[in-house]
């Protein structure tokens, strides 16, 4: 077998099963299971959490794992980091792994921050001498200053998290595995972390990134793998995979015509005003048919979002709306959207504000695709998501 360069991850047809006990195992079950784990033949109930997963990342590559909770992302990371073992298949990893599986797991509450830096650093494979030279940087990055000599159990959750991340951020591994660790911590620190991850990646480290925050996934990874039901659903360039994933999640979220509000959406149509494809920078006509039991003085909103997160832009119309069926049309000029899939959110609220039932609650009613040029990425290793498309005329003298 050829020796792979440091920073390579190769996962070939990896399967992983977990036991599927119906209840807490009784003593007898434990004895039986123990017996079979000694003889290494297991015939108990199990379920597959990973099935035939194959992926490879070259040195310096960046790969994101996306998928809903329980789709096997963390298990795959654990197999790659050799914390647990696959049930079948082959997994070979070259180089030193820095696994950020849970930043606070290695931190001991009774010890001081300083002691924890040495402890956690050693556990992550950093020599005492290396830690010493980086100690100030770590403390600085975590923003702990004086607190570093305090027992960690008196830290706030955020401080603990920052401490954990900072230690790992200065590991300088060949491969960095990041699992949903940025979900805690304030926006400021998240930004700092993403920036630090970017620096690490630019220095040539392979990155494997797991997150539900699709924006940060798109921002930090070139390639992505979408896992669902233990199986790889799609893989390829991040934008495409994330698009597929979004489409599937949206399907599940079933763009329901809500019955919550007073006003009902009966129909929703969109069309490019020139009758062609919906493209970046075209004018888009949105036509909504609604029904209201009574006439309203209200604000009408239309928002567009990427995925089911918050909208990228919103337009508003204030006026009076009749009772019964009525139609609202809106032309969006110069659609500033790059190629991709978007959701349309209508909403209606009375001028009086939020008392009583909302006229039309804020929720996506349909999704649509926009054709056109891809958005651009920064000419560096780490891409920055840029969902808005702005046409520009250039001149270089």
């Amino acid at each position: 077998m050829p020796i792979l360069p440091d920073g390579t991850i190769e996962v070939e047809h990896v399967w992983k099963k977990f036991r599927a006990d119906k209840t807490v195992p009784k003593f007898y079950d434990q004895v039986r299971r123990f017996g079979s784990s000694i003889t290494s033949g297991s015939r108990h109930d199990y379920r597959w959490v990973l099935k035939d997963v194959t992926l490879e990342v070259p040195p310096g590559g960046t790969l994101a794992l996306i998928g809903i909770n329980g789709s096997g992302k963390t298990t795959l990371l654990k197999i790659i980091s050799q914390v647990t073992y696959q049930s079948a298949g082959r997994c070979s990893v070259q180089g030193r792994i820095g696994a950020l599986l849970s930043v606070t797991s290695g931190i001991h509450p009774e010890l001081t921050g300083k002691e924890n830096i040495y402890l956690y650093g050693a556990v992550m494979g950093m020599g005492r001498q290396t830690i010493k030279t980086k100690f100030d940087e770590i403390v600085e990055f975590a923003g702990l200053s004086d607190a570093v000599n305090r027992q960690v159990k008196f830290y706030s959750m955020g401080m603990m998290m920052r401490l954990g991340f900072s230690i790992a951020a200065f590991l300088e591994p060949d491969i960095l595995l990041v699992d949903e660790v940025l979900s805690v911590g304030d926006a400021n620190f998240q930004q700092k972390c993403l920036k630090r991850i970017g620096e690490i990646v630019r220095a040539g480290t392979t990155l494997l990134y797991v997150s539900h925050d699709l924006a940060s996934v798109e921002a930090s990874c070139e390639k992505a793998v979408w896992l669902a039901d233990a199986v790889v659903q799609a893989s390829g360039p991040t934008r495409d995979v994330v698009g597929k994933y979004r489409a599937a999640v949206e399907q599940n979220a079933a763009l329901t015509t809500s019955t919550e509000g007073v006003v009902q959406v009966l129909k929703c149509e969109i069309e490019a005003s020139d009758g062609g494809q919906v493209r970046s920078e075209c004018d888009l006509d949105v036509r909504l048919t609604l029904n209201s039991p009574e006439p309203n003085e209200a604000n009408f909103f239309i928002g567009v979002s990427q995925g089911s997160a918050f909208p990228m832009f919103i337009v508003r119309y204030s006026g009076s709306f009749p009772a019964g069926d009525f139609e609202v049309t809106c032309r969006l000029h110069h659609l500033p959207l790059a190629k991709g899939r978007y959701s349309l959110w209508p909403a209606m609220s009375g001028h009086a504000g939020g008392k009583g039932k909302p006229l039309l609650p804020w929720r996506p009613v349909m999704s649509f695709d926009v054709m056109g040029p891809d958005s651009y990425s920064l000419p560096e290793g780490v891409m920055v998501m840029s969902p808005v498309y702005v046409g520009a005329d250039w001149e270089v003298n």
Partner: protein
Amino acid sequence: MPAVTATQTSFGDTLVENDASTIPDEPPDELVYHHRARLVDSLRSLWAHREIIYTLAERDFRAQYKQASLGVLWAVIGPVAYLILFVVVFSHVTTFEVGNLPYPLYAFVGILCWSFFASTLGNGGQALLSNKALLAKTQFPRECFPLETMLVNALNTLMSWVPLILLFIIFGRMPALQTLWVPLFILIELVFAAGVALAVSSVIIQMRDLMQILPLITSLGLFATPVIWPYSRIPTNFHISGGHHVAAVKLPGRLPGHFHVIAAHWVGGVTINLQMVYGFFNPLGPVIQGARATMLLGHSPNWDLTGIAALGAVLYLMFGYRIFKRLEVNFADIA
């Protein structure tokens, strides 16, 4: 290979959609992963990660005394409390033939050996469980956990040498020159304790009920081991009355280390040197006996007993390490 082909290489530049229906229900047999831990590789990896053992031990040692204002003194208080208890109880109830030795000194040597083993069994046995968080998230040899607790216990036991020295002074005695043999006994005990800690910790993580039994074993073991009574209480010629058949003579052959068994009456029955048998199964016995004989009495070690204890201890370690390596595949999943 049937059905499974490398259709999905994730690092392609184009989107590849995977058809889940082509994936079989079970992996093909040739792909099934068999965990093989080669001894040489395991030991090399353990050596490479030795710093983690030190660091974890330092963590536990610091954490242990961080909040106790008496600090490290607690490591001394335990054994001394046992000593007082034994002196009070046993000096009035029974007398053991300890020669002209002061009983406290005699008992304390046993207590030291025992308390190290007992705490290794207790803490080391639970080492994997109590380090769950690290076990499930970080990757380094899992042996580090039980070995690390052993190191902490060793440090604690080292503290208890202070009262031992005090006892020597109080009774106006000097340790004999033969005390130089004591490191050998310590080594045997370390090997034995490591084997037991490895085996127990890896089994306990699967069968938590054992955790409840541990304290029971520790308290029974205190009396089953020559801590408060002399090893010489175990008979050297234990007579088993045999039948008329030669088959009865086979009995010693089933015991490991049977070459030490002295069969005196080949026709009528067998006489077994129970000290040897006991020493094989519980190497702590000869260890305590040896420590007393050399340190307090100035005798040379009893090489038969020491040998059988060393053999037993090494077998315990081999067995414990094997079990540990066998079971480590599941540690992170069931922790």
